[in-house]
């Protein structure tokens, strides 16, 4: 019996262009599996963002609009208001979602837009080569915090999922990780709920995914996953911070 296959919602013959050990690949696969399982592929429109996440349209066989940096939630709002019958989600990095696009992200949640937001948090700006970003951990060295992030100059990292959970219009907000098999399975469940709240018209669904950036962290893939466990999860605790669905 076949227990694993490449999801139908992936583009035929796709090959990921991410670095070895990057969790983007797992996140996209989970989305594709859910689009298959929930029968959504043909009615999906995705707003991609700027950063490594932009290449989603090379891999996922759905309609995509590429948003300027930070504006994915605004474009998704436009799509959803024009075509309320479609399933609309954004796929963004932490810099896109929670730095340059924090206004758009928060206001989409406050307006209770029926949208699903997926944010990959890898504590750095990956595509530009590992700069200090909104989620960079205290003490973390990046190319623009070479002595490590210290609070006096750089302030504090943002806990995105908790922030979005505070918005009245948010129906579901969770933080998940992809470092272990149980965490990956939990991530899929959370993503499914974030999708379901949109389909049920309950409001804004959001999942923050703790992810690796081995290249910019200067680590091997498994060292990077150790870092997720040992350094990121203590600061960004996993869990569901808001859930308006009935079975909660």
């Amino acid at each position, binding site marked *: 019996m076949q227990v694993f296959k490449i999801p139908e919602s992936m583009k035929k013959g796709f090959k990921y262009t991410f670095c070895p050990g990057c969790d983007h690949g797992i996140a996209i696969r989970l989305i594709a599996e859910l689009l298959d399982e929930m029968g959504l*592929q043909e009615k999906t*429109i995705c707003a991609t963002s700027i950063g490594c996440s932009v290449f989603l*349209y090379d891999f996922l066989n759905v*309609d*995509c609009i*590429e948003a300027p940096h930070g504006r994915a939630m605004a*474009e998704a709002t436009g799509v959803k208001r024009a075509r309320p019958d479609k399933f609309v989600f954004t796929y963004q990095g932490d810099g896109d979602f929670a730095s340059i696009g924090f*206004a758009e992200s928060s206001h989409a949640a406050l307006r209770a837009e029926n949208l699903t937001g997926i944010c990959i948090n890898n504590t750095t700006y990956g595509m530009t080569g590992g700069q200090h970003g909104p989620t960079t951990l205290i003490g973390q060295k990046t190319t623009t915090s070479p002595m490590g992030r210290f609070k006096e100059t750089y302030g504090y990292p943002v806990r995105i999922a908790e922030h979005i959970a505070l918005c009245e219009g948010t129906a579901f907000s969770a933080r998940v990780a992809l470092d272990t098999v149980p965490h990956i399975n939990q991530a899929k469940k959370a993503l499914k709920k974030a999708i379901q709240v949109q389909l049920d018209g309950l409001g804004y669904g959001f999942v923050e995914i703790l992810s690796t950036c081995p290249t910019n962290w200067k680590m091997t893939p498994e060292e990077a996953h150790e870092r997720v466990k040992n350094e990121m999860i203590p600061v960004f605790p996993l869990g569901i911070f808001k859930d308006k669905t009935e079975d909660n």
Partner: protein
Amino acid sequence: MVSYSDKQLIKGNYAIAEASVKAGCECYFGYPITPQTEIGEYLSQRMYDLKRGYVCAESELAAINMVIGAVSTGAKAMTSSSSCAVALMQEALSYACSDELPVVLINVMRAGPGLGYIYPAQGDYFQSVYGGGNGDYKLTVLAPSNVQECIDLTYRAFYLAQKWRNPTMVLADGLLGQMMEPASFGEYPYPEVDNSSWALTGAKGREGRAIYSCARDEDEHNAKIRRLFEKYDLIAKEETTWEEFNTEDADVVLVAFGSMTRNIKAAMKVLRSQGIKAGAFRPVTLSPFPTERLNQLADSVDKFVVVEMNMGQMINDVKLAVNGKSDVKLVNRPVGEWLSVEEIVAGVKNIIGDKTYASV
């Protein structure tokens, strides 16, 4: 033909707003800024009543990107704003040109630079025609001169945006936005454009589509930009429009855009009555600009006097069009009260050396 009874007394901003409804605008996204706020106020109720989309956006950045999102699905959508806030939208306009999306944007100009003030001006000619965004691109820009044209050119903006898949701007100003005039809506006069070949409707029975501006192959990127500019050439060939008055025998031709057209037409009549062979020329499309026609006129016209409410912006395009064949001069005021007919007449006389009636 429009019968007299079709007309109603209406403010420019309301005229634009209702014209967008009649043009089939399915979604409006906006953020308040004087002097265009009535457009959003009007549509907040009207779109709700019609069960169409309306979002009071968190910023102009969000508003224009919501428009991009909506039009990417094949829907008609627009936003409206004013000068310093249109500046915020320039990034998205560059994206929309690259993505070839039929965005409609209304700019009711106020005075700049910076926050400036809410009285009218025409300081956004460069911003509109030459663009404030990055890279090579061109918007289609239409400039109405009265409230009736606010309606007509809003209709046309929706059609041109769809037809050419290019962001189209209606460049009005605070004077037009706040002015009441009799005008008639009639019916939206243009055919609907089929957008099924590119719109994002969900990947049903076909491969997933992506609308993006990210370029990863240099040759493809070059080819894409050249193709865009071939399209702009076609737009120029087919859509360039202008008005001219008494140019056949004119020695001096007054050139203005937008609502200043009204005053140069009046000034032309005064100058004619005083024996000066004056004509008037008014581009309706600022981009594409009626370069060829101005160049032809320059064969017989001695002087062009460009009248603008800025420090001289459109005059550059007039000079490029005339290409040294005739003299091109400027009568202007940067911002505020429109140049009166008397001031324009005096300015023209000053330029052509007739001091008899000059009083400025």
